[in-house]
């Protein structure tokens, strides 16, 4: 089907475009930007007047909960959420049950996702068997099955020799290793940042050095092994400083931050709001400011949703017992727009953090609107206000710390490979 998206404000970070330009799509690909190619006859015209036409969002961390946690969410429900959020490509961490440590599981997931023929699902394989941090998985086989990177998700890997070997092995094949820096001894039993709020609330705390110690280990091992390291979910000012220094020294490390940490701090825990129980913990206002500065100067490459949908019971508990995490696929776009407005950042730069940049982390030719690229497109209204109401979210998980917040930016069309997969009535 040939689609002509007209009158929209086209924003494409890769080609540095922010201008009113039409987009022409044929056979699932972008065939022209600006004026129609000769002989182009549109089967469908989308009038994007007043709307922004951007690459579909690329999310580095979206838990789809399959296999094993279907009571929390299903592939269907979460892909629906992704579509509603304008997310057309997403990486899912291996923390399923069983974890994504066998090619068969990965193939099944890819197959299920393909059958939905909506968002592109990119599994991140387990770095160690059952995420136990002891034995390596068959990374090459897993990559053949469709894994785009390897990670421990939130599971600890305390044995530094295993980590060294895992990174060496990954480096052999040029695979990316994605690690969240958190020393498991220092983080033991902790549920909140070791600061003022945890002290007032009497919550077991996780100090910043849990992040920096783990980070220094993984940076040293990346240096040693030459492995491609991607640092997941940075949370602290000290962590940002370390990544900045490592990059200045020429280490090819990349990193991301969750949208929750861009907007929230320990203060949001308030009277023990279990929706603010997140991992890594929400840190101080100073840390949040440093994360934002890191995004601005390029130290932090990408913003992810860190989507973790949950059943209601998982959060209906006292703070420490409530499961950590928040649903987020549908909030990624509005929260990036909110951040861009607050920091006065041009949209072309802000959207790069959720399109072009994460696509590069995934090693994908995606997240841009170049001629010849797959037509994964997000058309959104940047002005419309809407209130985050958990009941109205498509995600099966209703757990969000942004409950009740008025946000701006609503997706009008989501296209995957030239097919309109989401277009809400009015």
């Amino acid at each position: 089907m040939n689609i002509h998206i007209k009158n929209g404000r086209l924003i494409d970070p890769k080609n540095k475009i922010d201008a009113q330009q039409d987009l022409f799509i044929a056979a699932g690909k972008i065939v022209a930007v600006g004026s129609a190619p000769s002989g182009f006859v549109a089967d469908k015209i989308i009038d994007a007047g007043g709307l922004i036409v951007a690459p579909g969002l690329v999310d580095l961390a979206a838990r789809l909960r399959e296999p094993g946690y279907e009571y929390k969410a299903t592939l269907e429900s979460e892909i629906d959420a992704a579509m509603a959020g304008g997310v057309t490509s997403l990486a899912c961490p291996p923390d399923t049950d069983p974890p994504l440590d066998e090619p068969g599981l990965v193939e099944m997931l890819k197959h299920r996702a393909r059958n939905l023929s909506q968002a592109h699902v990119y599994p991140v394989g387990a770095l160690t068997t059952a995420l136990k941090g002891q034995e390596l998985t068959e990374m090459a086989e897993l990559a053949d099955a469709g894994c785009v990177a390897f990670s421990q998700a939130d599971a600890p890997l305390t044995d530094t020799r295993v980590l060294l070997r895992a990174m060496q092995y990954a480096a052999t094949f040029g695979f990316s290793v994605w690690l969240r820096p958190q020393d498991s001894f220092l983080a033991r039993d902790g549920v909140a940042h070791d600061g003022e709020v945890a002290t007032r609330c009497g919550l077991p705390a996780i100090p910043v050095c849990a992040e920096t110690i783990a980070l220094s280990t993984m940076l040293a091992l990346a240096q040693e092994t030459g492995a491609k390291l991607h640092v997941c979910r940075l949370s602290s000012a000290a962590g940002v400083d370390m990544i900045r220094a490592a990059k200045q020294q020429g280490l090819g490390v990349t990193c991301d931050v969750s949208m929750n940490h861009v907007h929230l701090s320990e203060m949001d825990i308030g009277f023990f709001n279990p929706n603010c129980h997140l991992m890594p913990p929400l840190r101080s206002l100073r840390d949040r400011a440093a994360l934002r500065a890191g995004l601005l100067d390029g130290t932090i490459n990408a913003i992810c949703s860190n989507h973790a949908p949950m059943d209601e019971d998982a959060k209906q508990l006292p703070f420490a017992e409530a499961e950590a995490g928040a649903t987020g696929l549908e909030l990624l776009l509005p929260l990036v727009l909110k951040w861009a407005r607050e920091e006065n950042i041009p949209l072309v730069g802000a959207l790069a953090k959720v399109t072009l940049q994460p696509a590069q982390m995934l090693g994908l030719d995606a997240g841009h609107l170049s001629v010849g690229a797959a037509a994964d497109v997000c058309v959104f209204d940047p002005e419309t206000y809407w209130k985050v109401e958990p009941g109205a979210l498509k995600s099966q998980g209703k757990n969000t710390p942004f409950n009740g917040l008025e946000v701006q930016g609503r997706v009008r069309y989501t296209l995957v490979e030239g097919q309109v997969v989401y277009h809400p009535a009015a």
Partner: protein
Amino acid sequence: MKNPQLNKNGELQHLLTTEGLPVKIMRDILDRAATFLDAADGHEIKKVPLLQGKSVFNVFFENSTRTRTTFEIAAKRLSADVVNLNIGSSSTSKGETLLDTVGNLCAMHADMFVVRHAQSGAAHFIARHVAPDVHVINAGDGRHAHPTQALLDMFTIRHYKKEFHNLRVAIVGDMLHSRVARSQIHALTTLGVPEVRVIAPKTLLPAMVENLGVRVYHDMTQGLHDVDVVLMLRLQSERMQGAALPSAQEYFKYYGLTEEKLARARPDAIVMHPGPMNRGIEIDSSVADGPRSVIMSQVTFGIAVRMAVMSMLAGNK
């Protein structure tokens, strides 16, 4: 953010913490507690019919004999019907969630819950989920708060020192894990105590504790210098396993309250302890039983203060 322990008229709906508790309400509780004590000797407590026909449920998810008993006595002196539920970990091990337990208890038509739970924030959680006419009293939640203990400590201080605005108070011991210390600090600063000190080794102090409005001392002889009130904290024996301390002996040597260290305080200083005491670990017997110890008065006053809290809550709809 709405203060979860006040109702729409600004009256006490639940007692969850001393943090953010208006000073007027705090003083009202102390004044009301005084009315329950016999004027003649200041210690005898009369029975009154203020809670007749009301039922008070003591819901303890964590074992406690002392606190539960004082709440029970307080409720009975107010003529309430008292139900004690020692839930421990039993109902959760049977698969019942805290929310289910609370729902079940509400269905039994309790007027007031006295709750103790091992998790910080559990009392807030329960208060959020009870029927709107039920009152919740926090009898200790994790490391977070133990407001009735702090209020009875304030009552005791006022009884012996009359005023708060001219006092220097030292809290000694395991501040990191102590809900009592947190509640004491908020109560003391709310009531206008100009100098609150905390004395402990660094392993027993939470991050940025100074932000609560206290001065930190690691040396007990310096920290006790010229203080009017010494509030001792209980040291749990498991602290030795968690690498917080090397031994009880070393702790006693440097942070145990002895006559010698107490000599640094003002001559009329009083010594308090929330109990149960570990003699020879945080406090020497000669101090615990000595002339400056008011520990037994704390127990008696605790009943009056809990009566004051319960009767105040019952009067607020």
